[in-house]
């Protein structure tokens, strides 16, 4: 039996607050599993414990109770992060380095060097669309470019698990779409993705399963299509349907004890409208 990519078992994290009797319970008795190859979205309002959970999984914060494992290895062990890539929320990196130097630095931390590292850096700069900005210092990068170099550093060691904390925060719709496409590409290559997104529309597009945290507790978990499906309803999208045809359909539905609840003109998404309007600019 293969180990889950991420296993969180009875996890509780309590932050003591100086001079206050009541400590903050960031995560309570959390249990979740992320299977290899799936895209898992960890959702929740601000302060629900998402980032704390991700940090415990990455060994950056120690649990008060319980444990987390990455591919069967306890997160407290440094080697558990061997096959992991992490993009923190609003990453800042070292602004005195260029894009290329940044990737080389993180590659060396993962034990890479020589032509293997050079090739990987070149490949990733091309993948995230920063080949032309490779020799620019990060202090001159825009928010979207920083996010993309952040994603590239998370992928430098060809990880089996990628943890992304708000990967599209502060990025414009086009940049956001690029990051979404990169995540879809990771999934296609069998890489497990655990993300804490702030845009629910993106979760719907890319996540296989989701978990919703509220006040540190997992209040809902499952496969996305199952969770959002409305069991007794169906949708029918028609093109060039005349008014007469629509009336006929409504009549047929009524004869079968069904009911047409809503009839409206189809619309595109605002994101699609934005992308189409700006694609030639």
């Amino acid at each position: 039996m293969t180990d889950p990519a991420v296993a969180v078992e009875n996890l509780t994290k309590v932050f003591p607050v100086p001079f206050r009797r009541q400590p903050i319970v960031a995560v309570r008795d959390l249990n979740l599993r992320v299977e290899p190859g799936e895209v898992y979205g960890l959702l929740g309002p601000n302060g629900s414990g998402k980032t704390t959970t991700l940090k415990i999984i990455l060994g950056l914060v120690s649990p008060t109770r319980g444990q987390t494992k990455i591919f069967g290895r306890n997160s407290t062990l440094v080697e558990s992060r061997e096959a992991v890539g992490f993009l923190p929320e609003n990453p800042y990196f070292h602004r005195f380095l260029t894009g290329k130097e940044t990737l080389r630095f993180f590659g060396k931390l993962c034990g890479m060097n020589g032509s293997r590292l050079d090739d990987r850096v070149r490949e990733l700069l091309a993948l995230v669309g920063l080949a032309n900005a490779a020799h620019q210092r990060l202090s001159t990068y825009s928010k979207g470019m920083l996010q993309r170099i952040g994603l590239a550093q998370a992928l430098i060691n060809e990880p089996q698990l990628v943890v992304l904390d708000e990967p599209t925060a502060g990025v414009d719709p086009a940049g956001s779409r690029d990051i979404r496409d990169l995540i879809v590409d990771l999934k296609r290559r069998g890489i497990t993705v655990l993300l804490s997104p702030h845009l629910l529309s993106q979760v719907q597009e890319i996540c296989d399963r989701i978990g919703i945290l509220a006040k540190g507790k997992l209040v809902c978990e499952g496969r996305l299509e199952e969770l959002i499906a409305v069991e007794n309803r169906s949708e029918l999208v028609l093109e060039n349907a005349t008014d007469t045809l629509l009336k006929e359909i409504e009549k047929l539905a009524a004869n079968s004890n069904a009911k047409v609840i809503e009839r409206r003109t189809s619309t595109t998404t605002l994101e699609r409208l934005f992308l189409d309007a700006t694609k030639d600019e």
Partner: protein
Amino acid sequence: METQHRPFSPSRILAITANTLTDLTRQKVFYVLLIFALVLIGSSVFLARFSFQQEFQILKDVSLGAMSIFTSLLAIVATARLIPQDLEDRTVSTILAKPVPRFEYLLGKLLGVVCLLAISLVAMTLLFVMVFHTREQTVLGETMRQMSGATHEQLQDALNTIRANALRRDIFEGVAVIFLKASLLAALTLFVSTFATTNIFTIVVMVAVYFIGHLQTTAREYWLTQESAGWIAKTFLAIVALIFPDLQAFSLVDEIVAGAVIPLAVFAKTALLGVFYIVIYTLAATFVFYGKEL
């Protein structure tokens, strides 16, 4: 899953060291302090217009004093910002989310500062030696010109007197002691910065430590020679001596400048003391940093 991870990797430490050094050399404060030191050493040449013995002595005093203060300041200021900056920028999370042990991260940071100190000291020593050598040659030339009518023996005596006051090899031992003292201060600053909330706090604490470190030997000797010094005073002094480094032990450099010959055993003892402090403070920093929530 099979692991290829090595518990200790010099190449990972080297990557963090190089990164830290790059960061520090791109800080403007470094250049300002360097210019300050260079101007100070350079100006001493023009300020010293006494007999050549006095001139050489002042030049050594001012130059090594400036080197000592500059490297101590640089060690504290450069180290104090490293960890708080990484915590604020969250770069520390990105680095430690890679298979990098926290000990290697701290060691890499410390070695980055130590490299900066070494580079600065080498640059200042080279400048100092060049300035001193130039002054020595000038004085030798002037003496030969002034004593053109004297006998060969008289001239040789005069030249030998000048050379005896010039730079001796043990001045480099003095530079090594300055380096050790600055490295010790860097290690202690790193330790303080692992629990400090701001780098201003770290700098203030370190300035206090600097003065206590220099004064504690004198205070200890004074108190312990008093007959009234009871066990409370002795215990207190023992604790102070344990927590604060005895920076007076590194005053060897003053003796070297004054012309004293330092036995190798004394130099080795001082070097060992410096290394001991550096190891202790680095271990203490690691202990605190391992418990830190990032």
